[in-house]
């Protein structure tokens, strides 16, 4: 692919290859080194533990044999071994053999699997512990020595997989770190390339096109001190030179016109002036105007960082709330745990319209910066929260910030993207949010596991401050003007009179959000935390499946929907898959099936999200013409937040009656039921634009 200076893709692909070469092998290097050191350090400690256990068993057995009980006649060895095995999961078996290696007692595994080894092995007269590798086990044999001499051995078998599993955990943690680092690198480098090269060169391109038409009234507004800045300096210099010559000529023309005594000369001079002004255009203000082109990508990195900060607490938020639990009269404990999540969503829903209007009025940059204030306070105070009461307040503050920031971003993108490039601009928004969601969820869980919930909120606050600095430094204070005025609330309510739109909202958009917040954000952490074998890192990795599957599915589905035009069908299928995903724990163990449910939920959202948006121009043809398509889409996004609010509360209502597992299934039944209604009604949608005049009625 040829590298073109004003196009991001070719340069970015080369850069991406370099990033892969620079980031992946060193992490692999560190991982391999760490794992080698890990097993080197861990195995001796496991041996010591096996020896300690063996020595204790040996002492007890020797005492009994010294009392005169023959070794093979000892009673209750099973009961003797069981608590030791139960308390030490890495110990797979305990055994007692006689001098010849015949197994007299064994607990943990079937004796047939290793007896042949014991009988053939020579334990000799060694008076200390003897270590051997027996297939998947490390066997630590200790001699049993009584007054009568050596009578046999006590064997403690540890699981070789124990070390291997711990090594795998490290490898998975580091894989998450690498993935997150790669995604962050992509975001940063995408920003670096667009901000430093392709963005300025696009501005240069715009000015070039004007000059090619003879218009010298504009210069590129690039002032960087790199190669691009130097080039633009020379480029602008050429324009300024032409402008300066023209100004001199213009002054000279004015002088001749006003001072020359010969009208013939004046007439000829006027002709020259007309000819020059006909052929070329120069700025009327006295010097060329500066062109600063705003792009949707300007806001991508700050948006990514902010959403990353918010998503960092995604995997453990219900667990943190549970730790801070304090009773609220009239509410069940589950409802109290669900309340901060539901109120977070409610505040976003309520604040978004005002935030959007404010962004139109005072500019996206200012609203973004305003939003960062409550968001940062929210993160800091969430880290310091004393109980669920104040946590609710701080989460609401964060939600207020979130609403302001996301609306500012959407407003900015809508303002800088031309109509035909609006989908591309929204792609920038969705891309940043989904990438941040993958990174934040995965990184947050692993981080919280190591440093605790509260420190993780501090990290979120620091990221928010970095976002503020970026916005302040990088986003031009002169903002592009809003394209259209925000519609009034009454117009939004009239939109609901379009039955197709209302059905889409009530039976497709809202249920999908119920599933997302009720199941993924609320029930998944609580359900998985019931299992002691699943730690926070595991939980986060399981939850990461959702944004990953959406990222993978959305582009494919968008192309498929455009190709087959079966948008309502895809929305219906997506909704039904989402409902079915949540019903799966009815058939299988939740721990096994929840990851599958999350993948399916991601696929369901991936299937239905793009077609939902794509349907709007057809379903709301009249409304889109009157209100603007962007506003109709914004209202759809706003209305679906009813589901985001209801999801955790609905799930919390189900828990006391059905337990965590039952609550997932019940939520699935609700979602599947609503999706079925949409599937039935979607047959009445028909294809093509609906131009009935619901609006005017």
């Amino acid at each position, binding site marked *: 692919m040829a590298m073109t200076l004003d196009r991001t893709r070719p340069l970015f692909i080369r850069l991406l290859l370099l990033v892969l070469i620079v980031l992946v092998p060193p992490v692999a290097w560190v991982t391999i*080194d760490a794992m080698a*050191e890990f097993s080197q350090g861990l195995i001796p400690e496991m041996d010591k533990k096996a020896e300690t256990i063996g020595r204790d068993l040996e002492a007890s057995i020797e005492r009994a044999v010294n009392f005169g009980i023959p070794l093979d006649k000892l009673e209750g060895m099973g009961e003797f071994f069981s608590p030791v095995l139960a308390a030490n999961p890495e110990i797979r078996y305990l055994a007692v053999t006689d001098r010849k290696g015949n197994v007299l007692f064994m607990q943990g595994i079937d004796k047939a699997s290793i007896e042949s080894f014991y009988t053939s092995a020579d334990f000799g007269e060694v008076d200390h512990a003897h270590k051997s590798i027996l297939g998947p086990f490390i066997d630590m044999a200790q001699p049993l020595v009584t007054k009568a001499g050596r009578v046999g051995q006590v064997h403690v078998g540890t699981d070789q997989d124990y070390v291997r599993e711990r090594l795998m955990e490290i490898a998975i943690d580091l894989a998450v770190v690498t993935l997150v680092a790669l995604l962050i690198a992509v975001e940063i480098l995408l920003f670096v390339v667009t901000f*430093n090269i392709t963005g300025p060169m696009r501005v240069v391109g715009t000015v070039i096109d004007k000059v090619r038409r003879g218009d010298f009234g504009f210069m590129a507004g690039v002032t960087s001190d790199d190669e691009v800045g130097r080039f633009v300096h020379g480029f602008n210099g050429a324009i300024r030179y032409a402008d300066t010559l023209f100004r001199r000529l213009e002054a000279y023309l004015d002088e001749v016109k006003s001072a020359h005594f010969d009208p013939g000369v004046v007439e000829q001079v006027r002709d020259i002036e007309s000819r020059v002004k006909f052929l070329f255009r120069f700025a009327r203000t006295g010097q060329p105007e500066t062109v600063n082109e705003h792009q949707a990508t300007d806001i991508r990195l700050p948006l990514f960082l902010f959403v990353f900060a918010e998503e960092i607490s995604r995997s453990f938020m219900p667990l943190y709330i549970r730790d801070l639990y304090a009773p609220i009269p009239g509410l069940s404990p589950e409802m109290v745990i669900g309340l901060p999540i539901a109120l977070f969503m409610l505040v976003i829903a309520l604040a978004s319209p005002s935030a959007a209007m404010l962004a139109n009025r005072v500019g996206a940059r200012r609203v973004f910066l305003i939003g960062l204030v409550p968001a940062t306070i929210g993160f800091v105070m969430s880290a310091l929260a004393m109980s669920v009461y104040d946590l609710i307040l701080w989460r609401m503050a964060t939600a207020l910030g979130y609403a302001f920031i996301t609306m500012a971003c959407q407003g900015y993108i809508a303002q800088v993207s031309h109509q035909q490039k609006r989908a591309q601009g929204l792609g920038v928004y969705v891309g940043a949010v989904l990438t941040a969601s993958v990174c934040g969820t995965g990184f947050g869980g692993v981080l919280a596991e190591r440093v605790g919930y509260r420190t993780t909120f501090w990290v979120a606050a620091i990221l928010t401050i970095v976002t503020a600095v970026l916005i302040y430094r990088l986003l031009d204070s002169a903002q592009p003007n809003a394209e259209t005025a925000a519609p009034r609330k009454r117009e939004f309510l009239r939109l609901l009179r379009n039955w197709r739109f209302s059905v889409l909202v009530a039976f497709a958009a809202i249920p999908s959000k119920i599933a997302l917040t009720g199941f993924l954000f609320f029930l998944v952490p609580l359900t998985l935390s019931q299992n002691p074998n699943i730690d926070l890192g595991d939980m986060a990795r399981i939850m990461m499946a959702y944004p990953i599957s959406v990222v993978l599915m959305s582009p494919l589905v968008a192309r498929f929907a455009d190709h087959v035009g079966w948008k309502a069908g895809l929305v219906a299928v997506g909704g039904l898959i989402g409902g079915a995903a949540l019903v799966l724990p009815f058939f299988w163990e939740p721990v096994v099936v929840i990851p599958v449910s999350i993948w399916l939920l991601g696929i369901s959202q991936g299937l239905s999200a793009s077609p939902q948006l794509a349907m709007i121009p057809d379903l709301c043809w009249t409304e889109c013409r009157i209100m603007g398509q962007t506003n109709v889409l914004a209202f759809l996004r706003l209305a679906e937040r009813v589901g985001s609010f209801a999801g955790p509360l609905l799930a919390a209502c189900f828990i006391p009656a059905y337990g965590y597992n039952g609550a997932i299934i019940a939520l699935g039944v609700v979602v599947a039921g609503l999706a079925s209604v949409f599937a039935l009604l979607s047959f009445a949608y028909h294809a093509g634009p609906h131009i009935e005049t619901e609006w005017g009625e």
Partner: protein
Amino acid sequence: MGHSSVAGGSGAGLPPARPVRWSLARKVSLALVSILLFTQLMAAFFAYYKFESVYSSLVQSRYSFVVFTIKKRVEDNLNLGFALRQLRQVQEIIEREKSRDAQILAVEVYDFRGEVLFDTDRGAIGTKVADSLFEAIRTGSSQSLSFSVIDEDNLIVGLPLVNNLGKVEGGVVLRYPIAYVEKGLSGLMVQLSKSIAMAVAVFSVVAVLGLYILFGGVGRKLGSMEQTLTEVMSVGGQAIPEGGGDAFEERFAEFVAKTRETVDHIRDATEEVGRLDRLQ
């Protein structure tokens, strides 16, 4: 971008070239090397803490087992109806366990009031245990859960002593040095530091080289375009993209031609006005 000279022209009148203070390669290198360093540090952080958590819990579980065996023996005697204070053999049991492992600093048995009844450091018998240990047997008693406490440079694991009526009679704790765990971890820390330093050094060089190659091309292209512009504006001629060039270079060549044409035209017009002005 090349340039073919066709006619001589007047002085350029263009501003002097601006020096490059921060090249593109340097800017992106800084970003990429920072990301590399951040990634390596995070990888090391997670690897170290995972190891620390597994290793220290393994050490703790080993000593918990020792405490568990002591607890079992003491409780067997308690269940025979003896009072904890009367169990003289406990001193022997704890001293034997201590003698088996050089890392064990002390083993203590104390009653439900927190008074030390038996201790491998016999001088401590009769003293009171720290509040944290006293609290630990009260809060963890019902489930007979083990507890762990950090006390200055020592790690403490313990279990409550419960009689057959479920009453907490006291507790048994074992102290071992934090330095023992730290020593086990230090190997990994050193190895990780070495690996990170080497990986960052090697791959920073790779990153910088790669970026200089990549952005060197961009810089050269821009430099060549700038030079062509300067030459065409000063001596005239045409800007011709090398090897046909891409769409951007073609547009730039048109820009150069148009600018030169404009400058020439204005200059001609100025001369013409001057000639007319001089007509008397």
